[in-house]
């Protein structure tokens, strides 16, 4: 069966995602984990592009790579004694976890494959997603949108309050 460009690109991005995700999970060095997370986010953004979610792919890179990952790196740097270049981390109960996670992955993959292997063709071609998303956020999803803005405000104030060191006031 000939492979088209779409399939090849899918396999490249899937490989990037899964390989770097396993670096995140299995590496002993925290910095390697953080950079593995970077490539995982890029791979997932590529999968979004293949699924015609262009706005979400850009959002993924902006928010995850530009925001969350930088936050994580700050956390790593602020909570490890950088003078000793170790930055190593321990693991707990690896073998039971491996066993259970293998069962989890197998059953999830089996359920997904057996349930959805019949769906071959895309149900919808999504062109202008940005316009559609903006309209939906302002009409159908206006209440969740407002609640999300309140949640962001609460998270902002809460994080600033929790992370402040001296609390004399």
């Amino acid at each position: 069966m000939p492979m088209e460009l779409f399939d090849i690109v899918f396999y490249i991005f899937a490989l990037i995602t899964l390989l770097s995700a396993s670096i995140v999970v299995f590496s002993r060095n925290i910095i390697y984990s953080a950079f593995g997370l970077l490539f995982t986010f890029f791979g997932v953004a590529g999968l979004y592009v293949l699924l015609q979610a262009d706005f979400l792919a850009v959002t993924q890179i902006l928010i995850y790579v530009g925001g969350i990952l930088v936050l994580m790196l700050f956390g790593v740097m602020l909570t490890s004694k950088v003078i000793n270049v170790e930055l190593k981390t321990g693991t707990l109960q690896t073998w039971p976890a491996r066993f259970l996670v293998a069962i989890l992955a197998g059953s999830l993959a089996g359920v997904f494959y057996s349930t959805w292997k019949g769906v071959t063709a895309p149900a919808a071609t999504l062109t202008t997603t940005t316009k559609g998303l903006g309209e939906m956020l302002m009409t159908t999803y206006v209440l969740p949108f407002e609640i999300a803005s309140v949640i962001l405000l609460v998270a902002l104030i809460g994080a600033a309050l929790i992370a402040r060191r001296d609390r004399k006031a």
Partner: protein
Amino acid sequence: MESAIQNISEFVAWLPKVQLAHFLLVSALLFSLGIYGIVTRKNAILVLMGVELVLNAANINLIAFSRYGGLNLDGQVAAIFVIILAASEAAVALAIVLNIYHRFQTVNVDEVSNLKE
């Protein structure tokens, strides 16, 4: 045994042509890796990284169904909300982790167990 071999060969023949289930398989593996990270890591920040992997796996599912399952743009809106929640969760959780570090001089989740006593 026969049927198992037949199933596996069917699966291998099915693999090259990318469809919905391929994306779902990637997301299932990503989810499992994230769960493994959450369960086994001692460092709280690496636990958070595992949570991010799990959220990304959920997002891949949502967007795959928005394209293949007839969910259309609703799936993408749900994915946007997941990203928003992930961002706020990361900010608050890292603030808590920094506080824990100032108090206990460690971020290993197995050593911070004062509530147990």
